[in-house]
């Protein structure tokens, strides 16, 4: 188990490095190869020649690529000082870059957005796991029944309907027509838990609906596979009740593929649920990215991208560790 842990950790370290390198390549090297001036891109919409030069110096864009990459990586744990003569910009650790549009370290933006994204992701994934897995299991057990067909058609609909549609419908009904729910503008940590709950309720449901549908389909398919396994027959041959057979034997095995997808989904979600956050105006990472794109704030886009990639890497690690907990064979590797 320890060996497995070390191996996975090493893999994550390598993955993080790859992520850093990929991000660096996309944001620093590709534009350069495409013949664009990176300093102009980083400056945002403002492109006074002097400022561009200032940013070039501050970001060290004249340095060799390797040095630039090192500074870029080092900034995250160590912080960074962008200096151009006596014009000094501090970016304390963890430095995910500095926005020349908002004149703030990107981490400040990420830090504010993170609780919203976390809360959205956590609530939604609890909902969709519960609903999706339950529906999938029941569908698998009642395969071919009216329930099964109905649930799978609903799931198909859930997967096909875009968030901005379901979101708008949900808001149209529950916020505007019925007035049952109030959605707080720009949710912040100053707001009470009640406000958070009320604001996030519809986004949770809408986001969960989309994913629950997928999980229901996945769970159903996996359960059908697992129920055909020999060890399920063995469990029954031992005289176990069906409930035990389903939960302890079948579902546990079915969790493995679900967990795989879940890990990826949660990672992606931690990078910001762009559509949900835009539809409901939740100031999370996804919305921050959209706004950064609107205001051409490249450092923020880079920061969110990097953070999202790291979130996915970490989510993968967690999933790998959970694998080992669920499936003892994995521990051998």
């Amino acid at each position, binding site marked *: 188990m320890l060996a497995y842990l070390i191996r996975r950790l090493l893999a994550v370290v390598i993955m993080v490095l790859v992520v850093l390198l990929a991000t660096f390549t996309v944001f620093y090297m590709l534009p350069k190869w495409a013949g*664009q*001036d990176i300093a*102009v891109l980083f*400056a*945002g*919409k*403002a*492109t*006074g*020649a*002097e*400022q561009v*030069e*200032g940013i070039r110096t501050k970001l060290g864009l004249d340095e060799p690529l390797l040095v630039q990459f090192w500074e870029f990586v080092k900034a995250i744990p160590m912080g960074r000082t962008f200096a*151009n003569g*006596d*014009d000094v*910009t501090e970016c304390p650790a963890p430095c995910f870059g500095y926005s*020349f*549009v*908002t*004149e*703030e370290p990107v981490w400040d*933006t990420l830090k*504010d957005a993170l609780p919203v994204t976390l809360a959205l992701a956590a609530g939604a994934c609890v909902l969709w796991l519960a609903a999706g897995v339950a529906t999938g299991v029941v569908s698998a057990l009642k395969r071919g029944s009216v329930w099964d067909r109905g649930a799978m058609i609903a799931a198909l609909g859930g997967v096909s309907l*875009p968030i*901005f*549609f379901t979101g*708008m*419908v949900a*808001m*149209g*009904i529950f916020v*505007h*027509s019925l007035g049952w729910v109030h959605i707080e*503008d*720009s949710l*912040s940590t100053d707001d009470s838990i009640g406000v958070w709950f009320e604001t996030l309720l519809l986004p949770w449901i809408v986001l969960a609906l989309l994913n629950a549908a997928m999980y229901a389909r996945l769970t159903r398919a996996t359960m059908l596979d697992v129920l055909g396994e020999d060890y399920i027959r063995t469990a029954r041959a031992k005289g176990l009740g069906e409930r035990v057979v389903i939960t302890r034997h079948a579902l546990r095995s079915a969790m493995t593929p679900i967990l795989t997808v879940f890990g990826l989904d949660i990672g992606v979600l931690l990078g910001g649920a762009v559509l949900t*956050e*835009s*539809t*409901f*105006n939740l*100031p999370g990472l996804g*919305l*921050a990215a*959209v*706004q950064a*794109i*609107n*205001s*051409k704030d490249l450092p923020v886009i880079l920061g969110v991208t990097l953070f999202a990639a790291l979130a996915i890497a970490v989510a993968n690690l967690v999933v790998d560790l959970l694998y080992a907990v669920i499936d003892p064979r994995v521990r051998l590797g």
Partner: protein
Amino acid sequence: MVPRRETGTAIPEVEGKMRTGSPKRRLAAGAALVVAALVTTTACGGGGDNGDKNEDGAGYNAALDKVVNASTKKGGTLKFVGKQDFDSLDPQRTYYGMTWDFLRFFTRTLVTYDTKPGEASNKLVGDLATGPAEVSEDGKTYTYKLRDGLTWEDGSALTSKDVKYGIERIWATDVITGGPAYIKQTLDPKGEYEGPYKDKSKDKLGLKAIETPDDQTIIFKLPKANGDFEQFLAMPTGAPVKQSEDTRAKYTQRPFSSGPYKIESRKANKSLVLVRNDAWKKESDPLRPALPDKITVTISANLEENDKRLMEGDYDLDVNGTGMTQSGRVSATQDHKGSIDNIQTSFVRYVALVHNTKPLDDVNCRKAVFYATDFAGLQQTRGGEVAGGEIANSVFPKSIPGHTDYDPYGILERKGKPDVAKAKAALKDCGQPNGFSTKITARTNNPGEVDAAEALQEQLAEVGIKVEVDPIDGAQSSSINGSPKVVKERGYGMIMSGWGPDFPTGQGYAQPLFDSRFIFENGNYNESEIKDKEIDGLFDEAIASTDPAKAKELYEQMNKRLIDNADWMPFIYEKNISWRSPRLTNVYSSAAYNGRYDYVSLGVVK
């Protein structure tokens, strides 16, 4: 002159209306329409306070040329909502029209646009100064006297030195970025001054072109006359900044107020809250009624939702001023027509015809495009006459002196329909009787632009002009269609885009578009690459003139020449549908702010 590169990138993005365009957008809009229909039927069936409120709308287009709900009643909270945040709250760094309009709540300039409805707003009046400048005979010296009782939000006196210091910040181009550079280019075209942060003098007031003989007087000395100089000073770049409060790059987070409101809280991309600045003295400021006690701005990403909440009264108006969404328009025109205005903006949609790309170097080939284009069809793709705008015949929008009815191609006469016979004749004249092939760019992030380009493609195909549509990323446009080199390499013959003026004169609108000296390697907006000495000369003459009537005549000449040469093809004078909450008092559209409501005059009923 230094390029005003930002204009085209900054203004169009904000001005550009969020219309339905690409297939995805269309799907979204379609969905939104369904939702809107769902919601409005239920919401309006219920009646309730919604219904009552909406009866109070002052009437369709009521605020276009008069004041709606004139009032002096103070109190209440004025609530703005918008999809896009302010570009910067630092007066020397902002370039968005909406910010310029909004900034008057806490930023004052020597002169400003009059707080009057419609075209009357284009008149410059004294703000910090007692009135417009005393201009010397040669047009090179501008002298202002400041009003009495001017204060900063900490109660300290606001002096002419603060005005000079604020303006000096424009020179610190490595830190104070983003704003227009007109004042710098006019006062110090060679860029000799290095800005206050590198200023060796003790008081950091080393800029020689501005003199402050006493705290009440400020004198500008221009090396060369510029008839629009006061226009430059009316922009936020002309605002004072108190030296001790200057946090340089971070000033955008908390600018120091000289107006009736000050910033209570600010979260970039989320919100802004203004409260009364108790140090401001009403008697020093005849322009601002300062009615609300509090002003809030909420940045909210979902346009359809914002429209809905505007109509429900959760917010009072859209701070972006980009007009309502398709679904919002539908339900607003049906149910609340008295609360909307069909605002004429100063924004023009156009197709630049690139002179450097064959065969569009030939005037007759360009004329063929003018004749073959179905302007009415393009108008439809942009949303029709009401939501899209009127068909254009002049390169200048109606609010800019220089606009005329001149219509040599008979576009208005034919109600925008093409003249295929004349188009074919023009093709023959340019030696391409069977038409020719070229490429057009359209920006994917600008709703509707790609659709319009595709519509044009079909129209021109009727006469044998085969156009390939190349959708480009709007964020990259300054390095794609803004780069003559790239344009030539890729063989673009047409560039579709939009343009609005920085300030309401021919110079403020047209110089980057048509002056050959404004062709730049990057961020070029003279996309047609017009190299016409006569045009350049007209600009010089008009700018040097301090007589607006004379300048107008010169710009009218310019318009004729550009149209005759088929240099640049405008097709729409953009309009939008704006929501005017019945709660609002003192509402009117200000031409000086591109048709937006004049924010600083607004009040609320409760």
